[in-house]
């Protein structure tokens, strides 16, 4: 039997980056999403937005080396890049909410069959932080969620209905997990790709709703 692999953080980010098309405007959330900036497919120019008010910024600097007045939303200093523009919060969320971003990528706790997203509060903690998540989930043309397929104790995160507080309803377009790539469609969740060594049946066992296996379902391409 072929050896099973789970994608690590970097590999999930790499898979996410394959979705970036030439000329796309993209917002990357904190955590795995920001790593995707390192894997833009060759020959494509992608322009990143950060909700603290910057579009088209350059690479992240080493800690302590950048200009403290030029940061991404994660508090990392970034470099000036030709074409970069800065703006205030009202303008930033006009961009985000108004459907001007092609892609928003964020982490998740749960994604439902209908594409509902829960990612701002773990119920046991009772206090969460909404931040820009609700706007980014609702506003982008395409919302990609990246997360582990199951919780630390093995429970499915892809569920029939979210039990965690909801960030946005019917908003997720594509889900990239450590074992699968799933598209949210009107007909249901379509399994498009599986991690190397995994079968669609094995992915289904760790998923609450019934997956529609795409006829072209194949191994996640990592190169």
């Amino acid at each position, binding site marked *: 039997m072929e050896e099973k692999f789970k994608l690590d953080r970097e590999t999930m980010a790499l898979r996410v980056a394959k979705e970036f098309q030439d000329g796309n405007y993209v917002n990357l959330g*904190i*955590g795995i999403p*920001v790593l995707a900036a390192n894997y833009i497919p060759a020959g494509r120019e992608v322009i990143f937005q*950060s*909700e*603290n*008010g*910057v579009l088209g910024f350059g690479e*992240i600097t080493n*800690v*302590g080396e950048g*200009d*403290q*007045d*030029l*940061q*991404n*939303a*994660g*508090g*990392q200093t970034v470099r*000036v890049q030709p074409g970069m523009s*800065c*703006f*205030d*919060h*009202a303008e*930033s*969320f006009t961009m*985000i*909410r108004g459907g001007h971003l092609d892609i928003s990528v964020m982490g998740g706790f749960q994604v439902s069959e209908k594409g*509902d997203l829960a990612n701002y509060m773990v119920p046991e903690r009772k*206090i*969460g*932080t*909404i*931040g*820009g*998540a*609700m*706007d980014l989930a*609702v*506003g982008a043309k395409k919302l990609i969620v990246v997360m582990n397929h199951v919780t630390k104790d093995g429970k499915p995160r892809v569920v029939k209905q979210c039990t965690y*507080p*909801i*960030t*946005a*309803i*019917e908003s997720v377009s594509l889900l990239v997990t450590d074992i699968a790539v799933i598209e949210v469609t009107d007909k249901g969740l379509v399994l498009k790709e599986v991690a190397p060594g995994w079968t669609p049946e094995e992915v289904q066992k760790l998923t609450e709703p019934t997956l529609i296996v795409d006829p072209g379902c194949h191994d996640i391409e990592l190169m």
Partner: protein
Amino acid sequence: MPVNKIVSSFDKAVADIPDGATVMIGGFGTVSSTPTMLLEALARKGVKNLTTVSNSCGFGKDVWKLLGYKFPEDIDVLVRNNCIKKAIASAPVSAVYQNNFEKKLRAGEVELEMVPQGTLAERIRAAKAGLGGIYTPVGVGTVVETGKEVKTIDGRKYVLELPIKADFAVIKAHKGDRWGNLTYRYTSRTFNGTMAGAAKVTIAEVDEIVELGELKPDEIHTPGIYVDRVVKRPAEYVEADGGEISKEAQESHDRFMERKSA
């Protein structure tokens, strides 16, 4: 008489902010776009029962000192000095660090109204723009829509969000002149630019005061009509109640260095 909005000290700039006032506080999350000196002056004044409107509720100066920020104080100075009764914020707590605000929230010592970030910006902008409210698709089907009007427009659902009105806005800018014209550096505009003019009185803390005319018409980010007072930051920061870096801040810093992000 020439218009002169320049105020000589931070204490004078906040002298008329009374107990119970609603105060907008500019910035985002990191301390670099925070009106540090104005917040310290407010805490020094001992003001109580404020309703604050801000993106976050502070990490505390230790976190920023460890990262090498020269002016490290954030909203935490109001939190830990018990100045706040209620906070309206989008990112009040951190997933990786328990700030003083979270401790007080869990102890029932402060109230919180959590607002999605874009809705917060637009509710502030609505107040500034004289609007009676805005309909936003953000929050539909979530806890945010609870108790609010939901209206279908062109087949899509929207939540009615009302303007946030405030007595004062304290903001941070880079340069200012005696008319109150302001410029900001890079990502320091954040809520500063949005809040300028959204409250009855806007007070701007600036790195530099320049002669009228030095800021060119095309480069002014906030026109002076939105600003009532301008006060200059000193060249050097003198810490009021310094001490050892807290263990929690040190641990959070170590995690930040590992993850390289907040």
